[in-house]
């Protein structure tokens, strides 16, 4: 990571016309509509979650890349941001996984021992 080149000369450039921006806006709207449809479509839960995740990740990526023109910035910015993005996602995944099995442990959802001495299980 020595000297960063000043500019971004991948031959790509951010959208230059209002038209392009509006087009992207329309795409985003359409995807949102599709998401809604999917949500009501009654497909199996696993599939539904998968499809929704992919679609919202797509929207997320489009906004970041185009509206926030990260795609056209110095790559360093992308690396800096992705630190947080990846770590944040990892923590969501890790925590939900850690609490997944946990449900069985929770003492009946009932305030196990809300009042001292009222320990729910193991009454003789």
């Amino acid at each position, binding site marked *: 990571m020595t000297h*960063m080149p000043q500019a971004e000369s991948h031959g790509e*450039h951010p959208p230059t016309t209002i038209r392009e921006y509006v087009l992207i806006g329309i795409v985003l709207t359409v995807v949102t509509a599709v998401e809604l449809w999917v949500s009501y479509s009654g497909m199996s839960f696993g599939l539904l979650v998968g499809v929704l995740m992919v679609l919202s990740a797509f929207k997320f990526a489009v906004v*970041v890349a185009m509206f926030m023109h990260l795609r056209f*910035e110095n790559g360093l910015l992308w690396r800096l941001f992705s630190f947080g*993005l990846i770590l944040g996602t990892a*923590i969501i995944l890790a925590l939900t996984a850690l609490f997944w099995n946990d449900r069985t442990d929770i003492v009946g959802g*009932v305030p196990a021992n809300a009042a001292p001495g009222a320990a729910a299980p193991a009454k003789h």
Partner: protein
Amino acid sequence: MAAATHEPPPHVTEHHTTTGIDNRKMMMWIFLASECLFFGALISTYLIFQGESLVGPLPHEILNIPVTSASTFVLLMSSLTMVLAVYGAQHGRLGMMKLMLLATILLGLVFLGFQAYEFTSFVHEGLGLTTNQFGSSFYVLTGFHGTHVAVGVLYLTSMLLASQRRTGLGADRALHIDLAGLYWHFVDIVWIVIFTIIYLIPH
């Protein structure tokens, strides 16, 4: 930076940096990385407390997906107007910039209005902050998102006000609007995630 191609930045020497990226822009991106973890923790909490509510109302009994879809659309459109404001700033089209800033602010306010409506109607239906785990984690997650929107509205308003001043936003105008835009879009993409997780995925 895109603006550079259209308006040579005046203080080239002042703003010289090692990587060529403006300090402020770099800080904004790192800050947004940090925000990913802020919302990551809130979203984790929401997910962990799914199905942990001891009493109703539960999400599927109360969430109003059509209304929220409308507010989602509003926020999405505000991203579009925001990007156009940045476009205006970068291309020296000040009228467009101001108009689009104003539009973004108004759309942001509409979104907040939707949220206020949603919160009050939920409260009427018996879901308070402390009613159950769903209520707590829902209000805190969407509430902090709403706070971010409100801060964004303030941020953009101050940009608009500053650009009304005689000196305008100064030589860094495009950058200032760009930064505000980055923040605003981020708040939008967080909502994309929240909308999917809370509203679209049925429980």
